C-alpha cells in the first residue's frame, strides 16, 4: 500500500513536482504515458504538494495515518509455564554470547514463584517474608 496516493483528478500538470521542496516528486514520460513518481526517503512530508495541487488530487491523509509495515520477523521465546511472549531467540543468544548466564525463559510472575519454591526448599522453616 502506497503512502503517497494520487486520486483520479490528477491531470499530470506537474505542479506538485515543481513545488516539492525536497525534490521527492518527479515524473517520467515514456512513449504515450506520463508517470508521476514519489520517493518516500526524500519526502519531508511538508504537504506542499497537497497545498498547491490545483486539482485536489493528492490524498495526503494516507501520509498522516499510514499502515504498519512488517520490517523483520524473528523467532520468539515464551515463558515455559504460561507461554507469555518474553523475547526473541536472537536476543537470548546475544545475551548468552556476551558472557551472561543462560536465561531460563520464565515470565516475571513465574520466575518469582519458582524462586519462592526454591528458597522454601533450601531454607525450610523460615517464614515467607524471611526468605527474601
Amino acid at each position: 500500500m502506497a503512502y503517497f496516493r494520487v486520486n483520479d483528478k490528477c491531470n499530470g500538470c506537474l505542479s506538485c513536482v515543481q513545488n516539492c521542496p525536497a525534490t521527492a516528486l518527479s515524473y517520467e514520460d515514456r512513449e504515450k504515458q506520463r508517470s508521476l513518481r514519489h520517493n518516500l526517503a526524500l519526502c519531508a512530508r511538508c504537504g506542499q504538494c497537497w497545498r498547491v495541487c490545483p486539482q485536489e488530487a493528492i490524498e495526503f491523509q494516507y501520509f498522516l495515518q499510514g499502515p504498519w509495515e512488517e520490517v523483520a520477523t524473528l523467532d520468539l521465546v515464551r515463558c515455559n509455564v504460561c507461554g507469555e511472549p518474553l523475547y526473541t531467540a536472537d536476543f537470548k543468544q546475544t545475551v548468552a554470547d556476551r558472557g551472561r548466564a543462560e536465561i531460563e525463559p520464565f515470565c516475571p510472575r513465574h520466575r518469582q514463584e519458582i524462586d519462592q519454591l526454591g528458597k522454601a526448599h533450601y531454607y525450610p522453616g523460615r517464614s515467607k517474608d524471611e526468605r527474601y
Partner: protein
Amino acid sequence: MIVGDNKPLEEIAASLSGYRKVMILGCGSCVTVCLSGGDREARQLALELTRGHLFHGSPPIFETGTILRQCERDLVAIHQDLPAATEAILSLACGCGVQTLGDVFEPLPVIPALNTTFYGAANEAGVWREMCQGCGDCVLSHTGGICPVARCAKSLFNGPCGGSQNGSCEIYADVPCAWALIYYRLKKQNKLHLLHTVRQPRDWRPAGGAGPRIRRRTGVGGGAGKIKM
C-alpha cells in the same frame, strides 16, 4: 519549526572567496519545509552562484547534496560523504546544522547560507509566522495559548501597552497586538480571571540567561550511531 531566510547572494559569494571547490549541503527537515534550505534550494543556489558575476575570476566548483538532518552529529558523520578536494561547505541548515557540520568536518570551514530567524508556524501556504522563542518556561496555559514572549513586540507579561491600537501593534498596523489576541481568546474561553492573577517575576535563566541549555535523556544510544562527543 525552525525558519530560515536565505542570505543575499553577494554575502554568500564574499564568504566563499578563495575556495576552489565547495559542497552546498541542504538539510531535509525544517528548512526544507519552509522552502529555504532543502535539496531544491541547494541546487538553485549552485546555479545562481555559478551564473552570476559574483566572483573575481572563476567561481568555485559546486557540488550539491542534502542530508535528512544536519543537526545530528552521528547521522552526519556516518552518512554524509564529501567529494574529494572539497575546500569548504556551504550549509543551508539552521545554525544548529552549521555548527554540527563544523564539528564533524573540522577543520573544514562551514559557511552559513541562511540566517536562522525564528520558530514559526505556517498558517497559510508560503507564510511562516513567529510563534515561539524557546524561552524554557512556557506560559501558554495562562495566556490562552498565545505567546506574549514571541508575539508581543516588547515581550510584555502585563500587556497590552499604550501602543495597542484597535487590536494592532504600534510597530505595524498589520501585526496583531498579542495581548489583544490573548484577551479575546481568554474571553471566548471564559478564563479572563487568569489575567487578574498576580504572578512572580519571571526567571529568565531557562531562556538561556544561564548559558547554553542542555537537555539530557539517559538510556539512549549504544547502537551503530553512537559517537563520542
